[in-house]
């Protein structure tokens, strides 16, 4: 099995891994079970020590912790701090962990409004949504709503073989153009493809749906010229704000009013 895995005949160990989910839809962890054709090989690369969704066995001797979701309750804060103490490498898995994700849309409303409107007469506990790096040091971020399994596989192989882990620095636009798609701006849509970090293979824009920026800003972005483009084409600034705020991944440029 995987204990005998080698790269250039140099053997390497399986990754002692654990996966935990916080405030989320669990869609990113689900991606770990996708790519069924290569799944036995992928699992062979891992020594799964703790993964509640998948296994009833639980051990606390993991090196790598995958964290899905954002943080919105005190018990989650405590659980996260405990995981940080154990993990040598803490990975923010997916957009909620990296940026807060769609959960952050709730931060537009006072906590009391949320509780009173949805759970009367119960006084349910909830906090404003925070991303993982607001609370602990994150060693590695894998953005995406959901994460792209290709990228997760590539990163896990890099970790197992001690290679450098990198994310694309260029924007989604490049991946989209490589697929010869008609630009959505030409179809009268605001698309965040020019701003957003690539690595998703332009899956949304290839489906003729504008990019909402789930992977966060690319390495270097020019927001000023992007705004010019939107204005020049007479596109709606409200629509732009709705898109920029969708995943909370463009925080410095978001309008924070509800």
């Amino acid at each position, binding site marked *: 099995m995987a204990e005998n895995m080698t790269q250039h005949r140099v053997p390497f160990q399986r990754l002692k891994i654990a996966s935990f989910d916080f405030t989320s839809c669990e869609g990113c962890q689900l991606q770990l079970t996708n790519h069924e054709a290569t799944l036995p090989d992928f699992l062979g690369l891992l020594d799964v020590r703790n993964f509640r969704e998948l*296994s009833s066995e639980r051990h606390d001797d993991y090196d790598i912790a995958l964290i899905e979701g954002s943080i919105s309750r005190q018990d989650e804060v405590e659980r996260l701090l405990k995981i940080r103490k154990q993990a040598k490498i803490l990975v923010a898995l997916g957009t909620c962990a990296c940026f807060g994700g769609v959960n952050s849309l709730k931060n537009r*409303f006072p906590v009391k409004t949320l509780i009173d409107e949805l759970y009367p007469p119960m006084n349910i506990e909830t906090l404003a949504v925070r991303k993982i790096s607001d609370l602990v040091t994150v060693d590695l971020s894998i953005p995406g709503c*959901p994460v792209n399994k290709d990228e997760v596989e590539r990163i896990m192989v890099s970790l197992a073989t001690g290679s450098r882990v990198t994310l694309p620095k260029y924007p989604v636009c490049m991946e989209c153009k490589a697929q010869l798609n008609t630009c959505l701006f030409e179809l009268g849509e605001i698309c965040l493809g020019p701003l957003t970090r690539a690595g998703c293979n332009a*899956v949304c824009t290839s*489906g003729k*749906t504008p990019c909402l920026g789930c992977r966060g800003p690319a390495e270097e972005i020019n927001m000023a010229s992007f705004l010019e483009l939107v204005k020049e084409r007479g596109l709606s600034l409200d629509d732009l704000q709705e898109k920029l705020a*969708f995943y909370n991944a463009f925080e410095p440029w978001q309008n924070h009013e509800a």
Partner: protein
Amino acid sequence: MKRDYAIDIRHLARVEGHADIKITVREGQLVDAKWAIVETPRFFEVMLRGMSAERVPFLTSRICGICSISHALASIRALERAMEITPPVAAEKIRLLAMQGETLQSHALHLFFLIAPDFAGTSSVLGLLQSHPDLVKAGLKLKELGNEISTVTAGRCTHPVSLLVGGLSKAPDKQRLLQLLTMIQKQKPALDYACSFFRSIVIPDFSRETEFVSLSNGKSYPAIGGHLLSTDGVELEENDYLLMTNEYTREFSTSKFTRLSRDTSVAGALARFNNNHALLHPKAREVAEELGLKPVCHNPFMNTIAQLVECVHILEEAEELINSLLDMELRNIKTPYQPKAGSATGAVEAPRGILYHHLETDAAGHVVKADCVIPTTQNNGNIHSDLRAITLQALKEGKEDGEIEKLCEMMVRSYDPCISCSVH
């Protein structure tokens, strides 16, 4: 023998989301049996407020990583009914196919990753890979097929990209539809193999009479829209979903509860089967009979078998749908619309049961009010009551402590709870 006994399972494994099981037995008497959902709430109904109709399905799909297509389609249906939009026929067929892919994927995940390890005496699919490699291979093929159907029709299997209010942003490629047909043919033996495994296992003997709720349209096995029907004879229109659900809260659970004619009711594959078995494909009915599934079945463990029967149905129906799509021009896939004020319910049969989204829009098509009632919320009370009943039965039968714990875990898993969803 009078004994003291406690089960305290924190964050039950192999279910989607966080929930605890607590059982206390004192001097041989059951003191307490509790199924407590402790998942962190996300407040989607408030998050939706102010969102444009165009963006809504992209937000609602994020309620659940497993049934994102169902959530997208429930909100799309609510908005189309609220703003009086009729999507093109081709779009409706493609949506239906996308849902079938999702249900196949979700059922396969449950049958092989979450349930099968219990029957094979192992803790996870990793153990199952060693003890039953052929079963895992069959399961993976079916899951892959489900995901591929959704990807071809909706652009991506988790969090779809092309499902919009009014129709679709992009039609599926006919070449890829043809490939799906080949793939379905190729994977039928995998499903036969899965059926032979589930025929060989012993399903625990337990029943507690309850009320089953599902969609029904009298013409086809339910998926998107229709009447709301219960085995106790309640029949209502989609917009009357509040009368069907009657949500309420209980302090120990972050998921709400529902009730109808009795204290508890059930949604899901078994409910769909109990209400619509005559509309299943003949091959699926045949498999149901072979596996001892007959309506009205009150054994919650048989939900797993109902899911397997639905997989058989899906493979047959997907073939028919793909063939009819191949005969159609797939040019007209979206109805243009002007946003307007309105309100309506969209009900769909998500993999785990009937799912309601009720949305109200303003004149600009922005959401004013949103309400979502999730299948697992509808099963919450029934799981709770079954846990009590099965523990009492096990005590009476003189089962060992470990056996009772395993039985309780398996019973809860058989409902395929989607806990994140229920605490949206």
